[in-house]
């Protein structure tokens, strides 16, 4: 298994380089280094000299991908792409365009993101599985039928609506929790209630339906018939046999997102005033801060790769027949 993991990690390198190259190209197609300088220096009274100086200081005065003024390998290495990318592979994210340390920001914003994403993930998984199993238990009854209708209805609503409606009802009308904000220490809890409820509710429709389909597929298999024939109670059949065997597709979807939980949610963090990494990315895109956008995309792709490896490992844990070689 170790060999397999090492091999997968090596495969990750070209993927990361590719992602980095695509991010770089897309970003600089839309924003030139001059645009970035103007954005940082402000709109009023920006002189050409100030722009040149800003670019020189941050290394944006070089060619993007190929330096014709250099010889040999330096034609590739003395470029913005190379200089900005190499450091990142050593996890040196450098400074944001406003001069602030990116690693420091990531460290300080990781916890708020996780404080929402983790409960949403864990609670959500539990709730969706229970709901799906309940619908399967009552399959072909009105509970199942109306359950599916409810799921389709929930799926049809935009996540933004959940946020606005949740804030309106729970915070504005009923005054039960703060509308937005984030606290310190014990105070954090009251700010998490609403985003967690909304986070779980907004994905309930799609996930419950998906899990229900997985469980139903398992229900039709021979071993379930066998278990029933043995006289096992339906609840034992569902929770001990069906659930365990349906775990592989559930894990495929769930484990891969675990590392990404650190990156937070773009919209929810913005609406709930959570100082996490999702809002950091949004801010960076709005302010054309390439250093931050690049770091966040790199981190996202890296964590995604880690998630995929973890998924593979988790297969071996839930299904002893699978070997990673």
């Amino acid at each position, binding site marked *: 298994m170790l060999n397999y993991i090492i091999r997968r990690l090596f495969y990750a390198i070209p993927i990361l380089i590719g992602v980095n190259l695509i991010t770089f190209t897309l970003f600089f197609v839309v924003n030139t280094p001059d645009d970035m300088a*103007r954005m940082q220096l402000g709109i009023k*009274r920006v002189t050409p000299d100030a722009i040149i100086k800003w670019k020189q200081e941050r290394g944006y005065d070089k060619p993007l991908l190929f330096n014709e003024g250099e010889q040999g390998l330096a034609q590739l290495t003395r470029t913005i792409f190379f200089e900005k990318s190499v450091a990142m592979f050593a996890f040196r994210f450098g400074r944001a365009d406003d001069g602030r340390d990116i690693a420091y920001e990531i460290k300080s914003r990781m916890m708020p993101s996780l404080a929402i994403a983790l409960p949403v993930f864990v609670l959500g998984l539990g709730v969706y599985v229970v709901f799906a199993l309940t619908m399967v238990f009552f399959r072909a009854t009105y509970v199942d039928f109306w359950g599916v209708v409810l799921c389709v209805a929930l799926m049809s609503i935009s996540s933004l609506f959940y946020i606005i409606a949740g*804030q*309106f009802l729970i915070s504005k009308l009923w005054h*039960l929790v703060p509308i*937005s904000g*984030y606290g310190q220490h014990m105070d954090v809890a009251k700010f998490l209630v609403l985003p967690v409820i909304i986070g779980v509710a907004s994905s309930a429709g799609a996930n419950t339906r998906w899990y229900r389909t997985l469980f139903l597929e398992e229900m039709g298999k021979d071993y379930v018939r066998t278990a029933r024939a043995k006289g096992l109670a339906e609840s034992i059949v569902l929770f001990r046999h069906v659930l365990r065997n349906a775990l592989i597709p559930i894990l495929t979807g769930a484990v891969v997102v675990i590392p990404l939980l650190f990156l937070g949610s773009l919209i929810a963090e913005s609406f709930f005033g959570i*100082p996490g990494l999702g809002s950091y990315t949004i801010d960076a895109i709005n302010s054309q801060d390439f250093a931050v956008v690049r770091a966040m995309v790199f981190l996202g792709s890296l964590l995604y790769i880690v998630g995929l490896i973890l998924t593979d490992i988790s297969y071996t844990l839930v299904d002893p027949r699978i070997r990673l070689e």
Partner: protein
Amino acid sequence: MVLKTQFKYLMLLLAIFVCACSGNPWNNPYPAKDAGGNILYSAFAERPKHLDPVQSYSSNEILFTAQIYEPPLQYHYLKRPFTLIPFAAARMPETIYLDRNGTRLPQNADAEQIAYTIYEIPIKQGIRYQPHPAFARDEQGEFRYHHLPEEELAKIHKLNDFAHTGSRELAAEDYVFQIKRLAHPRLHSPIFGLMSDYIVGLKEYSMILQTAAAARLDEQRVDTYLDLKNFPLEGAEVVDTYTYRVKIKGKYPQFMYWLAMPFFAPIPWEVERFYSQKGLAEKNITLDWYPVGTGPYMLSENDPNRVMILEKNPNYHGETYPSEGMPDDIEEGLLADAGKPLPFIDKVIYSRERESIPRWNKFLQGYYDASNIGSDSFDQAVQLSGQGEATVSDEMKEQGIRLETAVATSTNYMGFNMLDPVVGGVGKHGREAARKLRQAISIAVDYEEYVSIFANGRGVPAQGPIAPGIAGHREGKEGINPVVYDWENGRPQRKPIEAARALLAEAGYPGGMDVKTGAPLVLYFDVTARGAEDKASLDWMRKQFQKLNIQLVVRSTDYNRFQDKIRKGNAQIFEWGWNADYPDPENFLFLLHGPQQKVGEEGENASNYSNPEYDRLFERMKNMENGPQRQKIIDSMVSILRHDAPWLWGYHPRDYGLYHAWYGNVKPNRLSNNNVKYWRIDASLREQKRREWNKPVLWPVGLALIVLVAGLFPALVVYRRKERGMGIQGSVPGANEFGNLNA
């Protein structure tokens, strides 16, 4: 261990219970300990990029820096038109005019004779800086934290990790030090370009510093601190401990306004030395993050992702609330605190609120003390009387919320690119035709309607470039733009569309058709990419041009490309705006000054307008003191502009602000930013209203529980029946078959 965890949860439950029983609203986003505190609660949407006064320029940055730093001058809080008064200065600066030989000239000397102006600025004695580790000294009198070893640095993560702080008295050298910082090669002061044209030697000083900084890098010194004290600047010098001089080229009366901005606030060298230590910047411990000033407040918490907190500076030297103001101020209670010591508020909590909906709702719940009005909440907040006067809606009135309005010292206009052959014209006849075309469009585009539909009436249609409240602006009949308006029944009346059509025909486009080609006239409106919500305003604009049978094509592009088009002169018609830096007509009229063209000069004249007569008058006007002679020149200049119509003058926005009943001493304006010290909060009233407005509504929770139980009960019954049913099914025919499989 288990007991410890259980104890923790017990405490948490207890805390929730206490919170629920204490009467503190459940939805209160602030800690219970702050309840009833003399605290102002506000919000900010965008995190400030810079808090170093040499760099900060945006309004969301000055919001903080203006409370922390003390430039020599400030604007009188209540007087209008805006009046400069001393802030850290002991009195208004003495202005000395010199000729080329250095001979002193009289105060009424002709501007052309004046080669240099010296501003001699005395500062108040006894002003002290806020407590800061940069000033901390050990028992031997040495600075504790100026040469931190690596192991010490490793223990530092934020400014509060320094155990000791110190302070010292403000000195004139701190102001000189800051002026030198405008040219620092590492810092990017947005006003360096402008100031290097005026402050004697500043441009050369920048080159000297660049060379010195490069030399330090070449020598590969670990400590790259550039001590500006070792580099004298001719244009800024210390006279004595409490007096300094700034020497500028020629006469530039507007320089006094710059002295009221944080760019000219004092920075002590100790602070620059302290922050320059390697390793601190990696932890975001920089002057750009932790400002150090002598003003009424200091930044005690800087987490721009969540909250920024200003607290009273314990070393503040004190100041009193103004005793004079405008006649209405007494009636509005703005002079009730006259002579009382400032600041009134102990602490200001600015919470990061990116979205307008939560911000607005928190204001209505009493968790923000003031709010602006978004277009989506306008109808809920404001109602217009029969006379068109805006007042708060009944719902707001019930909550005790009041509305304060002020015309902003800014202008939103639609510009024509004068380099464009169609709207700018080529050759004498072409330019004349283009002028008539622009005048026709000026009449056709109905800004009264625009303000009414798209700005909810929050704006004043402009008659020229100068905003109301600025010297040079004229009200009434003599202030109207005669190209676009007639004076009828005591108010300006837009000319009929026939007048515009006649002008269009004279321009060579009768009925909107080009006489030369016979093709319909097509014009291009360059805008930044907009969402669906702006479609209505673009359609409206098309309709305005359609009145003249002109086809308007909207060219939408992203913000960067739009800026690029303007810089290169590739746009034809565009929308733009300007917020005044200071209350002087020069700050508006320079936007159409020829040498300030965008194309080629990288100036602020986005229309690339150039008129030699206008430019000549501008040169005369800019150095004059306000008075009848200056007004006469301004009138001539504005008249030229109206005739040439390089802009559709658009409108001057009117700021609407909502304030709760407990918020006092508010007189809104956009120019003086150090206003927090004047404001007052009735914290007990706020506390009472918050409790009243935010009582938790518990029936939905009960209902949810009932629904849950009601749903669970039949499910449980069915479950039990089903579980039992399985056993019975085991004995029915077919069971043997399963049994066989089992076997």
